[in-house]
């Protein structure tokens, strides 16, 4: 296998692993956050606006980790920086 194929394999597999691993953690975290927020909403309906706002901000915080992983995997697939390097090397040979 030449370098180009190896780079392609590594990029695609890493992209898949990134999004797989990167979505598990935030998913568990968001589930916990929403569950806690729901139970506190049931206990104190008066504080609904505060709880909802804090929940949204917190969810965005948690979700941003998944988004980072998504961005990294998208870069690996569509805008791979190593790709140009390897192709330039092969062409130069």
């Amino acid at each position, binding site marked *: 296998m030449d370098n180009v194929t190896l780079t392609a394999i590594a990029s695609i597999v890493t992209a898949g692993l990134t999004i797989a691993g990167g979505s598990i953690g935030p998913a568990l975290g968001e589930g916990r956050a929403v569950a806690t927020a729901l139970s506190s909403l049931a206990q104190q309906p008066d504080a609904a606006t505060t709880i909802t*706002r804090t929940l949204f901000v917190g969810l965005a915080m948690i979700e*941003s980790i998944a988004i980072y992983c998504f961005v990294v995997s998208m870069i690996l697939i569509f805008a791979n920086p190593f790709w140009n390097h390897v192709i330039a090397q092969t062409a130069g040979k």
Partner: protein
Amino acid sequence: MRLSPDEIILWQYGFVKLNGTIVFTWGLMLVLAVGSKLITRNLSTELRRSRWQNLLEIVITGIQKQIEDVGLPHPQKYLGFLGTLFLFLALASLCTVIPGYEPPTGSLSTTAALALCVLVAVPLFGIKEQGLGGYLKSYAEPTVIMLPFNVISELSRTLALAIRLFGNMMSGTMILAILLTITPFIFPIAMRALGLLTGMVQAYIFSILAAVYIAAATRPQGEARTDANAKA
């Protein structure tokens, strides 16, 4: 496949490029500026108002209330900055119903610029509120050891703001493009509707986070700088 509207190049002369991001951003700015100019041209304090004035009043009072809830006692001071951020982001994602339009926030340059605005605005509001010394002292809290970490958090949260918005908006168009090749017709429409919701939530979150950062910077000394600082 396109990652961002940066790659739509409409006009090029030498190294000067006019890409989709710039055109869509200026279009949105035009709509916002001309729209608010037209609406506020003949405001009335009577009981009878135009329906556009009613709409604008609902939006403005809603934003003011949200800013106040975050912990900024005088929302009028911050309304210009935070309100503009929210309205721009909301309009940018709402306009995705127009065919041929791509949200300019799906480009990292736009979101980075907005995040940089927040990075600059937070110290400005902080210094205006509690003076240069008072603001700088807030970096050395609770102890001086925390100084580098406070500076790092300032930078990393700016990065997080930019990447979060970019990732969310970019993923919307990306998922749509992928779905169009797999299951065209009905399913992409449902995802587009979901994208409208995500866009509004992201606009809300971006401006509310900016408000939280400003609230943390303008809070007087002695009071606990709680949640806002720990986030990155």
